[in-house]
């Protein structure tokens, strides 16, 4: 082990909690930038979509007519950045009539109670 490695702080468990629909406000996109940065810093990143946040992963987004950039492309890049822990809360999906097949990237269902536990296991939870 080199000195440099000794000095490296242990990776932290950071959970990003995304609760907003895309395009109406810029938080989803800014959250995604933060996620990529956290991953670039070698942190243990978990991404959870709750409430309207699940809409961020809806397939077939095309914001050309509202002159915004498509969030979908960045989501597709998550795997490349090594972000694999991606969850959508099951009840949020059901209330919105969404199924996993309608999502643009593979995401896992998480039950509300599992999410409660998962939050407790993090070092920090960043809400967006």
């Amino acid at each position, binding site marked *: 082990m080199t000195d440099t490695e000794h000095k490296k702080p242990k990776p932290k468990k950071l959970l990003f909690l995304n609760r907003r629909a*895309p395009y109406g406000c810029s938080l989803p996109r800014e959250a995604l930038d933060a996620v990529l940065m956290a991953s670039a810093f070698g942190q243990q990143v978990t991404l959870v979509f709750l409430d309207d946040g699940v*809409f961020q992963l809806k397939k*077939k987004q095309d914001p*050309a007519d509202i002159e915004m950039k498509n969030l979908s492309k960045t989501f597709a890049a998550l795997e490349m950045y090594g972000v694999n822990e991606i969850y959508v809360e099951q009840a949020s999906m059901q209330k919105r009539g969404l199924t996993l097949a309608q999502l643009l990237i593979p995401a896992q269902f998480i039950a509300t109670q599992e999410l409660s536990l998962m939050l407790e296991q993090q070092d920090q939870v960043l809400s967006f």
Partner: protein
Amino acid sequence: MILHTINRSPFGSSCLQSCLDVAAAGSAIILIEDAVYAALPNTQYTDQIAAALGKHKFYALDPDLKARGIHEATLDGIESVDYDGFVALCTEFSKVVSWY
């Protein structure tokens, strides 16, 4: 009659509910921005919207439906309009009331 605009998701905000409570029969409602999610079928709010379709003509802004990937399957009875159509509606109705 009034054209009501709503721009918030029905799941996160009480905007749509307030508008539905107050809007007189015969007034129209246009869903814009995040409110277009109210046009989705099979949701928590579908029954309520479907019931309101008898009382109000509903429109949804197509560029917003498209942006969010939900333009292919919206509730029957909700008409898509583009920005030109939105402007036209504002001229057809005597007044516009915004819910946000």
